[in-house]
């Protein structure tokens, strides 16, 4: 049911962990399944220079968070904010229907981390 790419991201997740001096931290939970995702961003001049994540969730949740961190690393905040769960799913080569909601977590966690950064730095939305 999972693509090879999902399995690879699950088995060898990129950017797992925490950032001690993160500029923005986002934590979201899925109301559907009770799973949790935490995203840490290091931001310099409006660019995401480092990102880490931690996930309590299924295989799809781990794989989507992992690939999402890859997709936003080195991107500007505006670019990162445009990331959607369907872009993440496409990048993974698809997800089973009943696992689509898991990919929403990654999108939301990134948005939450950026929001946290902006509020800490007094940047208006």
């Amino acid at each position: 049911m999972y693509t090879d790419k999902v399995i690879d991201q699950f088995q060898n997740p990129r950017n797992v962990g925490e950032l001690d001096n993160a500029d923005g931290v986002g934590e979201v939970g899925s109301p559907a399944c009770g799973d949790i995702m935490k995203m840490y961003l290091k931001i310099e001049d409006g660019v995401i220079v480092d990102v880490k994540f931690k996930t309590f969730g299924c295989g799809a949740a781990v794989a989507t968070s992992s690939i999402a961190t890859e997709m936003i690393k080195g991107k500007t905040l505006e670019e990162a904010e445009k990331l959607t769960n369907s872009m993440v799913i496409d990048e993974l080569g698809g997800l089973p229907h009943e696992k689509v909601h898991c990919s929403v977590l990654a999108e939301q966690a990134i948005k939450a981390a950026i929001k946290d950064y902006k509020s800490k730095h007094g940047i208006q939305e």
Partner: protein
Amino acid sequence: MQRRYFDYAATTPLDSEVLNEMLPHMKENFGNPSSVYSYGRDARKVIDDSREKVASIIGAQAKEIYFTSGGTESDNWAIKGTAFANKDKGNHIITTTVEHHAVLHTCKYLEKHGYEVTYLPVDEYGLIDLDDLKNSIRENTILITVMFANNEIGTIQPIAEIGKIAKENKVLFHTDAVQALGSVDIDVKDLGVDLMSISGHKIYGPKGIGALYVRKGVKIDNLIHGGAQEKKKRGGTENTPAIAGFAKACEMAQSTLTDQIKQATELRDYMIKGILDSIPEVKLNGHPEKRLPGNVNVSIRYIEGESILLSLDLIGIAASSGSACTSGSLDPSHVLLAIGLSHEIAHGSLRFSIGKYTTKEEVDFVLDKLPGIIQRLRDMSPLYNA
């Protein structure tokens, strides 16, 4: 990759002796047992003999056994059939919060059709309280349905005691023994059971076949109306190969029961000890002794069941997280919630079920690999602080 199967509670491989018993009835002896002549007569005899064998494993008489398409149909039939047939006596049913969905969803359906259902809670081990049961019985109670052994956590209920209470109160007693069959010594007469559901594919028999034991004299409406098969109680052309296979599986299970129980219990306790000893913050679910010989169910804090299953699968180990039937849904298992686990911990639980082909080598393989997998996943978890 070598596969190691630890999901015998979900389904079992067909025993090759069972298959050999089925094959002749698929090819030459294919006749319709309801037809009058030789093709049919041969099939009829197979069905009669099979009924004897299936009856024997639960201490019933052949004429009290009705073949169905499986455990789910048996559960539906037992509950709806007695509920509809006893509508004049009352509309109250007692069950538990930890039943299989075949029972729970049937009860929910009846609630929509004018029946009242009491769902007895269970303690932290998954056991119901007998006083609770007694206090729940009312004037209008027509049926008690309590499962013999739980499919997720393996807890075995005090069936004989429930049977006694049911009898004293003149209420019918159904038990879903799908998981108990072949793992527990069962005698419907001793246990005071009026109706019992069993299924073929959990005991190395074929899928798509089961039976309902209906004690002589019990009034029950049909669930599936049709031809004159099964003494007019269940229509449909008889599935002779599956019936023959089910009977063979029962016969084999019965003759090896004591050894099977011993072997599975040893492996189970070895596996439980191994997991609890090597992984911190792990909890055994279900009762330590009153449990199915093949059931290992543990909650592993801070991580989620599906990702453990996936990691195990990638090295060839098939296990389950709660019931296989629940995996279509996202909710954590209703059984784990019923024994008082939080959502988060219920999500991190794992069932290994041991069967007759399980070896110590296979268990050792799991015990060797599991701690590393758990550690890797915990390191990814926002809930875990090493």
